[in-house]
């Protein structure tokens, strides 16, 4: 067993408000974990309890087989990267990176070497003498990243490090962080509200809502098999239907839709979720070769949103809005356009069935 980090019944209460509610997690050494959730879900509070800047109300944080609840933040030797970079504006790039090393009373020569190596890692060697204000946001966050890494922390904690950056730089830096993590094999815990970021970067994603962990799993699991309707809704996009289960079908309003998955007992209220890319769109005149005729519904294209490789269609289905994504080529081939009457096909196997009230949406 390596230097694992373990959260046991971790709880944080502010008076009557429970920000984090008895959460449990084992993080292996070298793992890249992402806490994902909407703002106010408690993800940052979990991170801050791990850093030691927030006290623990209940439960334990165990690192390397020691309870560290009461350990000074500086004694934890965890590196932190902040959303606002938090570089020291009164110090140069070099001095910023050297700060943690000086605090550890490293010899001067060793500090210089380490700082040099760190600057090389982020390709900012020529910028060492500049002050943070002279750098772009992306450069500042790179400096903040290696400043946290320079003292060789046991764990690196990243608190929404990319949120303040422009879209393009965000993508690049995301890839750089991932690469760095794979090279250094350092345990990293990353907090974000951006689901795409979480799915693309993490070994495992923890989806949080209302202070609780809704699902913990590999990105693909989270996306393909969301544990509850909240996860299905928050991670990626889903169309939802509320209905009542009867045998292998669900009654939604006047319609009966066939589903494959067994998510609830008979005659129970359920919610159905289906990803936009799983809904198929045809022109009415097309001869359909589908398995379940009852899952074919007619609608009208209200809005066409071009997204590059895919095209998103907002379809009006008896007043209800259905989101579908189809590949741009197919969109071309089927010559679909706004205002067209279309047929929608919902494959039964693509439906996720959640008992209603199970994961409150």
């Amino acid at each position, binding site marked *: 067993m390596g230097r694992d980090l373990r959260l046991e019944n971790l709880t944080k209460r502010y008076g009557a408000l429970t920000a984090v509610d008895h959460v449990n997690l084992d993080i292996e050494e070298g793992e890249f974990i992402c806490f994902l959730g909407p703002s106010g879900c408690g993800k940052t509070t979990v991170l801050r309890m791990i*850093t*030691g*800047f927030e*006290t*623990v*109300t*209940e*439960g*334990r944080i*165990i690192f390397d*087989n*020691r*309870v560290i*609840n*009461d*350990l*000074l*933040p*500086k*004694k934890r*030797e*965890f*590196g*932190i990267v*902040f*959303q*606002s970079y*938090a*570089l*020291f*504006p*009164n110090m140069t790039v070099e001095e910023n990176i050297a*700060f*943690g090393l000086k*605090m*550890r009373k490293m010899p001067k020569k060793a500090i210089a070497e380490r700082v040099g190596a760190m600057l090389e890692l982020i390709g900012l060697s020529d910028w060492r003498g500049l002050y943070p204000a002279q750098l772009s946001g992306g450069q500042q966050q790179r400096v*903040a990243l290696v*400043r*946290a890494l320079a*003292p060789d922390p046991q764990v690196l904690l990243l*608190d929404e490090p990319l949120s303040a950056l422009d879209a393009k730089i965000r993508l690049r830096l995301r890839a750089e962080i991932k690469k760095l993590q794979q090279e250094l094999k350092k345990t990293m815990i990353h907090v974000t509200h951006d689901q795409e970021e979480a799915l693309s970067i993490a070994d495992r994603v923890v989806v949080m809502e209302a202070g609780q962990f809704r699902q913990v799993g590999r990105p693909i699991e989270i996306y393909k098999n969301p544990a509850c309707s909240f996860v299905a809704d928050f991670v990626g996009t889903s169309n939802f239907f509320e209905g009542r289960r009867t045998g292998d079908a669900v009654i939604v309003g006047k319609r009966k839709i066939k589903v494959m998955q067994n998510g609830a007992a008979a005659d129970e209220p359920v919610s159905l979720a289906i990803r936009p890319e799983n809904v198929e769109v045809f022109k009415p005149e097309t001869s359909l070769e589908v398995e379940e005729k009852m899952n074919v519904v007619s609608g009208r294209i209200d809005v066409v949103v071009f997204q590059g490789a895919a095209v998103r269609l907002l379809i009006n289905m008896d007043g209800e809005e259905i989101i579908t994504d189809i590949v741009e080529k197919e969109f071309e081939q089927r010559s679909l356009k706004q205002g067209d009457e279309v047929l929608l096909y919902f494959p039964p196997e693509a439906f996720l069935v959640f008992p209603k009230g199970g994961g409150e949406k």
Partner: protein
Amino acid sequence: MKNPLHPEKTSPAWLSADAIFTGLITALLLAVLAFFLLYPVIDICRLSFFKEGVFTFQNYVEYFSNPRIFRSFYNSMFVSAVTMAITTVLAFFFAYGLTRTTMPAKGIFYTISTFPLIAPTIIQALALILLFGRNGLITRYLLGTDWNIYGATGIIVGEVLYCFPNALFILYTTLSAVDTRLDEAAQSLGASSLKTFFKVTLPSAKYGIASAAALTFNLTITDFGIPVVIGGNYSVLATEIVNKVFGLQRFDLGATISVILLIPSITAFTINYYLTRKSYALISGQARPFLQPSRPFKKWAFTVYSALICACILLVFVTVFAGSFVRTWPYDFSLTLAHFDFPSLGASVPLWTSFWNSVLEPGSFRTMIAIKYAPIWTSLLVAIVVALVGASVTLVAAYIIEKKKPRGEQLLYSLSVLPAAIPGVVLGLGYVLAFNKPYFFIYGTIWIIIINVIIANFTLGVLSGTANLKQIDKSVEEAAVSLGAGPITAFTRIIFPLSRVAFLSTATFFFMRAMTTISAVLFLVSAQIKLAAIEIIFLDVDGRTASANAMCTVVVLIVALFLIIMRLTTGSSGLTGMSASK
């Protein structure tokens, strides 16, 4: 699995260590403020209510039953109310001109308008007497009239000139923060300029206006320098306190009047404080400084108006400067330096004396510099110590309040803000009552003066410190801690360097106050320890008006020189944001 620590404990050890550190400093600050701020004020209240150990209203009965003394209360309220009305209106239009028109020379106008902050409040009175006094240049020499400005008129004109920059600062901030696009929107909807002004501009600035008015009231009712010089027989509360104490040795009556003065001054301060916060809370981040060119009439009307006000402010300085260099104002205008050879009033400061003795040749010049200039050297020493210590202590207090938020933070904050509400004369008298005891060894030394000035101006130091610290992201300090820095390292390596500009401007403010303050230290000077600003009053009371002018000129020049040095060496500061209104 090992479990060396108890999971039940809810507060980690480091938090308690940090809390102990914070708690110690908090306790220390609270103790200092309690001892040097609350205790003197409470002592005043005690003295006003007790006679020979028995609780009594006798002092108050005596005050209110004697119409001649009671008059001072009415007088104070009257001059303060009139000053408030005039200053607020004048400053509002000046601020309007600076923020809402495209008049030229705004920078020059603004700079000149802040000049009164660098001089003792007495300067306005001295100038008015030179111009409109019994031997005034204008009244006697030019007009040949017997009318003079002594009394209520003089006090009001003097106070307006003195309070102007303080009121202006609030109104300027308010008006420049209110979104001018509101005005544009109103006009695009068809409102006339006048209607826009009354329906949009004025209402959106109402809190700022009220807060500027309250501040002016507070400054006027607590001021001592102007009424003592120009008031003549017109007595106000602040001068009445000094009269009763110095003239009649009636400390009990002085204390009684102090308590009476505290009521309007604390009320006015409280109103100012809350309205300022309310006014700044309305500030929209969207405010755009872009201005359409004003119509020529509006532009020139405001230019002339602003130029006139600046001329009045400049006239004060020019008059006092001139008054200190001419032989006999207003009859003999030949130049002389004789007034700078201050009469020796028996002060001696061995430290300075021996210093000058060692660097200067014996002779009358050395006597002048070493002995007669003693009050100036003392003031300078006091001002430098006050600047360094005051700025440091208030920065630490602000740091504790803003970043540490310990238990008792609210109390610490309240006590830190309180000094601005306490009139200097009252605090000074309180110091005499509380600390004039044989076992209190620093009484009668310059240290009690230094402490008094720091405490009296604590408010602005703490407020500008907290405003600055609010801008430092909490995560910057956390980053330092997570990288291994302790609380002291984090403060000295990160927080202090980032507060450098605020520190310097607070230090500048403390220096200015120490050089120019009169009312707070009036009771604390002695035959041995004299201060330049107080000497101005004593010289004036002594009938040596020209020397009073000369001393005032010296004080102004020292402060101006200090400001210039600060500006050249740090590239920052200047007077903006340093008025008592912050």
